[in-house]
């Protein structure tokens, strides 16, 4: 016990030096640095992460035509284990965890007691009592407090686990040729362990692009060897590492939202009116009133019944080809009814698309006569455009290869 305490205090002292490195290197940093011709980095939750390595447009087309490799290590990860892990997660998250079988992943979200969304993320179920929760923001105190009374342990493991997303039509072929036998059996949202080096890698058929794709998690020590194995396996399949700009384009096409970009998470919202219930950011489908008590249940169901939901998140198709990022949305060109949180010209859909938050009833029951005001800066002058916007379903693109079984090779 004393020896343990001493080691702990030595580590604590050694960790003092962190202040010299404000942006942590990712476990894949040596590979990323070597490829980062752009040297265009941003801060992802305290990690140094690339906007683009070589050319963000070409990286995007790798997602849609071959295979793109993206470092997701900075994602916050919690290891949740114990006999009560299922019951605990069923209590704190929205979706019904009893329906999530071992070897499966689902996209879920969690709320505070008032029904406001704290974050969204993916829940991986490795076995009956072993889970991993991946998300954007940090929730350790909340998870620990919620765990009181459950036989479950919650450990933050962001820095211990490296992650990669491999996305695109040849991603299955890359994995197969990298020697992951049996990976073809993975259906969408399946996960399985595969041998790697002396340990194993968790591969799930998941992703953030709306395309065929996989996510891989390994202990950080095996990060580089996994990277190399994928690059080697992908040689003939056009594998290309990418930065966030390309991924962001793909995720907008897929209609997926990003915490603190498309909505403000509950614990970081300083202004009360920024808080959102699941139904207000398009996550209403996660709610399972039949599953019993979960965090925020009463508030969410009350809001539904009393029709007090104030906002709605919608997909918009906007005339023309100028992206409407952060444009104000108007009804009849006059009344301000919302804001565009993400927008691009979609290369795959060949449409001008956007994700927007509107004040109900606009976007909900009133969907006609919506407009967006775009300020397009061109050579130091704003071109002020008022463009018609139409509420359309998300995702903006639907690719059969995403769910095809067996997965396609190209």
């Amino acid at each position, binding site marked *: 016990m004393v020896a343990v305490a001493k080691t702990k*205090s030595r580590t604590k002292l050694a960790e003092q030096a962190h202040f010299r490195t404000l942006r942590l290197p990712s476990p894949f940093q040596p590979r990323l640095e070597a490829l980062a011709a752009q040297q265009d980095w941003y801060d992802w939750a305290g990690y140094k992460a690339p906007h683009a390595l070589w050319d963000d447009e070409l990286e995007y087309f790798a997602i849609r035509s071959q295979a793109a490799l993206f470092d997701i290590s900075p994602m916050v990860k919690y290891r949740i284990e114990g006999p009560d892990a299922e019951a605990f997660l069923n209590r704190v998250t929205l979706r019904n965890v009893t329906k999530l079988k071992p070897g499966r992943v689902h996209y879920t979200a969690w709320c505070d007691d008032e029904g406001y969304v704290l974050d969204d993320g993916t829940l991986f179920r490795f076995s009956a009592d072993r889970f991993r929760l991946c998300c954007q923001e940090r929730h350790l105190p909340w998870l620990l407090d919620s765990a009181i009374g459950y036989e479950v342990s919650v450990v933050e493991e962001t820095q211990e686990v490296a992650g990669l997303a491999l996305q695109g039509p040849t991603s299955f072929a890359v994995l197969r040729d990298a020697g992951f036998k049996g990976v073809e059996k993975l259906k969408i949202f399946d996960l399985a362990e595969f041998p790697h080096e002396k340990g194993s890698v968790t591969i799930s058929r998941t992703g953030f692009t709306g395309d065929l794709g996989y996510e891989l998690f390994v202990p950080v020590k095996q990060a580089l060897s996994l990277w190399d194995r994928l690059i080697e396996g992908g040689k003939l399949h056009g594998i290309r590492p990418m930065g966030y700009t390309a991924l962001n384009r793909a995720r907008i096409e897929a209609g997926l939202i990003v915490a603190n970009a498309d909505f403000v998470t509950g614990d970081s919202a300083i202004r009360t009116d920024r808080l959102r219930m699941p139904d207000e950011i398009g996550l209403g489908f996660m709610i399972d009133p039949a599953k019993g008590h979960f965090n925020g249940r009463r508030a969410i169901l009350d809001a539904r019944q009393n029709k007090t939901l104030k906002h709605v998140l919608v997909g918009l198709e906007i005339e023309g080809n100028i992206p409407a990022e952060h444009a104000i949305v108007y009804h009849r060109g006059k009344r301000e009814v919302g804001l565009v949180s993400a927008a691009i010209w979609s290369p795959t859909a060949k449409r001008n698309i956007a994700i927007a938050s509107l004040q109900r009833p606009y976007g909900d029951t009133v969907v006609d006569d919506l407009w967006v005001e775009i300020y397009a800066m061109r050579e130091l002058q704003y071109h002020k455009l008022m463009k018609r916007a139409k509420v359309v379903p998300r995702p903006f693109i639907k690719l059969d290869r995403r769910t095809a079984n067996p997965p396609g090779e190209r």
Partner: protein
Amino acid sequence: MKNWDVIVIGGGHNGLVNACYLQRSGLDVLVLEQKDWVGGAATSRSLTPGFVYSNCSYVCSLFRPEIMRDLELPRFGLQVIPYEGGAVFTQDGDYLANYRDHHAHRREFARFSPRDAEAYERYACDVTRQCRFIQPLLMRTAPDPTSFKPRDIGELIYLGRKFSDMSAEEMALTMRFWTMSISDFLDEYFETDVIKANFALSGIIGTALGPMSPGTAYVLLHHYMGEVDGSVGAWGYARGGMGAVTQALAASFQASGGTIRTGAQVEQVLVKNGHAQGVVLAGGEEVLGKLTVSNADVKRTFLKLVEPKELPDIFLRRVKNFKIRGSSGKVNIALGSMPEFPALPDDSPCYRGDLHFTDSVERMERAYDDWKEGRWSADPFIDMVIPTTLDPTMASPGKHFMSCFVQYAPPKVGGREWTDADRDGFAESVISQIADYSPGFRERIVHMEVRTPREIEAETGLTEGNIFQGELTFDQLLFNRPVPGYAQYRSPVGGLYMCGSSTHPGGGVMGAPGRNAAVEILRDLKRGANHVSAAHDVI
């Protein structure tokens, strides 16, 4: 004999802010300062060749940017430099640092507790929400809840509306913030002693309360309401010491035609028929003024400068009971070289911020126990900064000015007055604490200025040396500051106003009391106040 439009008693920062605004509205204003220099508790003085001290107040954050701009203080030399971090040394040879970078800050906390590291986000959000509620109130006269004047009713509605805009959760938090102890409050977020101590210090600075005393959570908020150029909650050094604030104010005042008389100690406010006529100086000289404004604290003003017979008994009783207890001292040190702290890496930004040695809330509370017993703390809490790490004007290169704010120091020692021997004992408690963490520290000392509550009161006139001109407890805030019914800068004596930190919104070198008092005076004189900017929007 000249009859001034306004006489301001005391050339502290609030007196000068008040004088500046009144002079700029076309009034003929005279500031009377007892010392041979202006500044009150915001001064920079050289007591040994080659060194300048911030003798009392030593860091700047709360001073309202609206005032800096209105009074053109940058033009008159005011610069505020944000500081870079801070640290609490722990007794096991480590330290807990505060970094400006969000993620570095989190990782530093994670060295001690992963849970606390992530709890910081919610804590910071909750504190920010509360500050956003209070901040707009700083530059508004508190409404009188018993008045039926449309203005008071309007202000009450404004307050009520702000309050009702809150969610039930936030309202509950607000009530807790205003009433809880900082120790209990921090327990709701954090589990690690040193992390709690790191935040608790803002709850006790300047206050004769311990971290476990109810009401100290608000004191923390008070220290978080400031900013350096929009960076909310940040603290900085006034270049040239805190005297730079009052020097800039004095220069601004004089440039607009105002008059300052130093070495002019006011003995009495002349009152005739319930109306102030001016003042009598030590030596008997009478100076006449149509209006008189006191920058002195409420006790000094009404218990020493105004004859009791001129005051209603209930007012007098409340002034007597106003809590303005001495709780802190100050040790200013001129150093021949930069002190070393082996626990802290040489390239740590924490040297350019505030350093502390009290690594648990319990030690802080024990230090307060000594105060209750009428002793200075044997193991004091020290807020230590070395401004010369960022300010080249206060010492020559390689030499440093170190400012130590020290708690607790009682107004009287065991019921009797402080003696010089007490003062030296108090200083030794500080030096020995620093020397424990900094080998060779004593040898670096070139000169030292030691100020117990006795010295602070003698020099600045602050009753008991209380730096806020009265405790910032909820019973003495808003429309209760300094006393109910007189929270709008007026007094029972006609033509006699208050503009010191005894009034809303309190101390900390904000300048808001001086500014708000000027607005009320201009209202009484039916003069425009267009040159007084409203508080910046909180969006």
